[in-house]
């Protein structure tokens, strides 16, 4: 992407705002969709969260200080939105976030927007047993291939702690896959 400062300027200028926002959408809608979908698992929920994320990004652009990269700022908003969504949905259903996740994973076979096999479903089941933070780190590293440095900026956690989290997550998943 072009110089970020110039691009943010275009996003804030009412004359160039619409074109710049279209550009932002085209660039980020796919990776952000994947990131959100990996957390909420279901397409309809991912669609809701993605739209809210972009609306929040648009509304808060004027407050964006440029202290972090636009990319990590947007990922941070998307992550917070997705996790809040999961918690609210679980609360509404009167169950825990873990129980909700297990329920969604169990229904993956019937999901028309899931094109996976037994191994992929088993992997999702293994991820569902991890603590929330380890799940997030594993998904971002393994599926989305986000660098630890970027992840550190998004999640506000040190690179060392992220590496440790990923290591623990991998061990637990491998154990689950070999024993189930």
């Amino acid at each position, binding site marked *: 992407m072009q110089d970020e400062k110039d691009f943010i300027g275009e996003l804030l200028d009412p004359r160039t705002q*619409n074109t710049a926002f*279209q550009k932002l959408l085209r660039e980020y*809608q796919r990776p952000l969709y994947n990131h959100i979908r990996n957390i909420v698992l279901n*397409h309809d929920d991912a669609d809701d969260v993605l*739209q809210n994320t972009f609306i929040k990004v648009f509304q808060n652009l004027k407050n964006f200080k440029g202290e972090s990269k636009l990319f990590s700022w947007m990922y941070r908003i998307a992550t917070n939105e997705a996790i809040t969504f999961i918690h609210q949905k679980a609360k509404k259903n009167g169950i825990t976030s873990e129980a909700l996740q297990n329920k969604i994973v169990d229904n993956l076979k019937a999901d028309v927007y*899931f094109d996976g096999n037994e191994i992929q479903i088993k*992997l999702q089941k293994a991820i569902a047993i991890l603590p929330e933070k380890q799940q997030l780190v594993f998904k971002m590293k*393994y599926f989305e291939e986000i660098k630890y440095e970027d992840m550190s900026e998004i999640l506000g956690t040190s690179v060392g702690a992220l590496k440790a989290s990923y290591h623990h997550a991998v061990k637990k998943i491998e154990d689950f896959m*070999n024993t189930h």
Partner: protein
Amino acid sequence: MKPFTLNDNEAKITTGFKPPEGYFEALESKLSAQLPTNDPKVIAFYQRKTTWLYAAAAVVILFVSIPIYQNVYHSSTEVDALVLEDYIATHADISAEDLATVLEKEDLEKIKLELNLGEEAIEDVLLNNNDLEQYILD
């Protein structure tokens, strides 16, 4: 059977999640419609209902407040006693005749009664004030 590992030598397992066909194309237009516009709407002054309401309210208040003001501050037609006294004191050219024409007979007698000092009092004054004798001789 080979144990399951997630190391880099193994083929990566993907999530298997996919969006509906044409989802991203539709999202663009859906989002554009949802975004708040930053252009302020131009509303003509005369079209503002509130302006007319405020103007009408101001006129009503004005009409109501004028009579109230007049009633509160100008209801008394009598002259304040202090103001009258002050007027008489500063306009000293009012003579006894002037007062006599204005005052009734009863009022004058009242004044006379009030001034009835008695013979002893007059004598006292005359004794203590030598100058008065000179005035009387004159």
